[in-house]
């Protein structure tokens, strides 16, 4: 077991643990905060897997923007601070399906890779990813910009009922 494995195990444990707390805690704000921990641990996993750029983007966008947005939403919907007793539905089907999906996938992966070792690739720093992105993936990149614009417009229209209504 190498140092990378140890790091992966540790960060993975943190990520899974925090993820489990996100979906089980009965305090809204804490769920958001556990999400931060989970996303951060995943960013750490990216770093171990030599995906530097992705890791920083993860931190910037997810931890920085998305989580903040989610917390805003929590605030705007006047979620109570503290325990909310009515957050959950009966858990059996959710547990069955979620457990089935997670454990099934895990079993598939474990069965596929066992304990084979692979060498880590070259670092995915900004230069390498940027070269790849603007050489091979330019068109999807540009299309994504259109999608972002559409999402932007859509979000505005959805959240402003006075736009588009007839009266």
């Amino acid at each position, binding site marked *: 077991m190498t140092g990378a494995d140890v790091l992966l195990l540790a960060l993975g444990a943190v990520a899974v643990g925090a993820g489990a707390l996100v979906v089980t805690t009965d305090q809204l704000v804490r769920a958001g905060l556990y999400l931060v921990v989970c996303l951060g641990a995943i960013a750490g996993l990216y770093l171990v897997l030599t995906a530097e750029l992705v890791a920083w983007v993860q931190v910037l966008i997810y931890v920085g923007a998305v989580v903040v947005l989610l917390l805003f939403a929590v605030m705007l919907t006047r979620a109570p601070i503290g325990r909310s007793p009515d957050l959950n539905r009966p858990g059996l*089907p959710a547990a069955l399906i979620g457990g*089935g999906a997670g454990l*099934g996938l895990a079993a598939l992966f474990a069965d596929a890779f066992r304990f084979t070792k692979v060498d880590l690739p070259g670092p995915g720093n900004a230069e390498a990813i940027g070269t790849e992105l603007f050489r091979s993936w330019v068109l999807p990149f540009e299309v994504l910009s259109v999608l972002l614009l559409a999402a932007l417009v859509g979000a505005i229209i959805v959240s402003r009922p006075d736009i588009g209504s007839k009266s």
Partner: protein
Amino acid sequence: MSVDVLGPLLPVVPLVAALSGFVLPLRSKNAAALLGIAGATGALVVAILLAVRVDEPFETVVEWVQIGNLSVTAGVRIDSAAALVAVAVGVVALAVQVYSTAYLHDDDRYPPYAAQISLFTAAMLLVVVAGDLILLLVGWEIMGICSYLLIGHDRRLPEAPAAAVKAFLVTRVGDIGFLLGIVLLGVNAGSFWITQVLAALPGLPAATVTAAALLLLAGVAGKSAQFPLHTWLPDAMAGPTPISALIHAATMVAAGIYVVTRLYPVFVLGDPSLTVLGIMAVVTVLIGALAATAQDDIKRVLAWSTVSQIGYMAAALAVGAPAVALFHLLTHAAFKALLFLGAGSIIHEVGSNSMSAMGGLRRRMPATFWSMTIGLGALIGLPPLAGFWSKDAVLHAASSSSAGWLPDVVYGVGLAGVLVTAWYAGRLWLRTFFGAPRSPGASSAHEPSWPMTVPVVVLAVPSALLGLLAFADGFGSRLTPFVVDLPEVSLSHLGAETAAPLALLAVGLVLVWVLWRRDAARDPARFLGPLRSTFDNAFWLDNVQDRLVVRPVRALARRVSTADQRVVDGAVEGTGQGTADAGDVLAAWHRAGLPRAATALLAGVLLFAFAAALYGSAT
């Protein structure tokens, strides 16, 4: 015109009259009457021309449809017997048409009535001239529907619709056999053309011919009111009296006898069929004659006498004398038409069917009285009236036949029938015309108007004289259907054996006269004692039929109807209802909220993934 044209023309003339009569408006009674009379006159003229000109049988046949190697032909085949029967049909139809103009003067549906008579005539003439079995069947079936329409003509009578339905259904039972017999013959002979069928008969298996003959007999029994399918005929008296005359004298009941003579070789070769016919005939003669003794309704007396007389014809056929049967058919047509029309005049004047309401009409209606006297005399076989010669010929044919035990039975029953016939005819005569009037209608009756009197008087002529034709040269061979190789029958033979029926006749007449003399106001039938109600109800055969056929069929029909409603409809409705309900359930299921939809979606995805993983690991 050549006979080739005249032959097909014979049924076409009244058919045209019928079809144009159907489109007449209801109020144009005169036009309808004229049209009907013209149709009947035309048919009569054509029939007379044919009877004069046809010496040798001739056929006109066109092929109609070719199905595989089975050809369906349409054609006429006319021999002198057919022409003579056609003349009888024409005379009776004309008499009935003329008579109806007065008898149904106030009827509000006269045009369809007259047109139906024309159609009835056309159908009967089609049967008479038909050269192939399919055309024969067409005419046969049209007669069935016409009898239904005409018997049920008077809708105000409560029993008329039931009688019409009964006539239709009972004859239909026989017609099914008739149809099957025709199909059996046609398919096995490879042709429906009567000549070819008869030519092919010797080559057919005996069992086939026998089956065909017996099946045809069922149809004959139905149409000609032979036991056990005779029950419709007395009930058919619910129809207007001229229709009774038409049905009883010239059409319908005569058709069965005529078809047997037409297809006589089938019955000769289909061995036991003539014996069956003979048994049916003797039973019918007895039932008809005995049932006639106790009836109070004058029309029902005549109806039962028809049943009995048709039995004589069938008996003549059974003992191998089709010419004699046709001879009796012709004379019977004349005197039975006369009797019914005369009875119609009486009913018209008295206003009742019941003989209890008549009496003393001899002086008030002399023309009708004398005509009816001739008709009744012909019925009982009083020499030298028509019925004497033909009935004597039947008895002679039976006594001179040597084909086993059947002719002896026929002879015995025929003699007994003469006695009973004399008795009931005498009763009718005395009860109607003699004694004191027993109702206001009877005491104020007088001769009806000329359209009703003239046909009755005119029909008295053939009723009286037709029998003398038996002395005409070659009349017997003219009446012999040309397809039969039978020895020449002599229709006229006066000898020692004639004394027996005459003696019985006299006994019957004297008996009824003596009984009547005791109390002229009362019915001689009271001396029948306990048998009276049995005879009056025709041996309770209607009840037997009701028990054995009608009720089981009704019960079965109810079951089937219930089964249809419950099972068949239930299956159909249930399928629809079940589908709709299942649709509702599925729709409710699909109206899931977001959570359940998401759960179901993800569960489905998971299932597919598992299946894919298992499948992938297995291969």
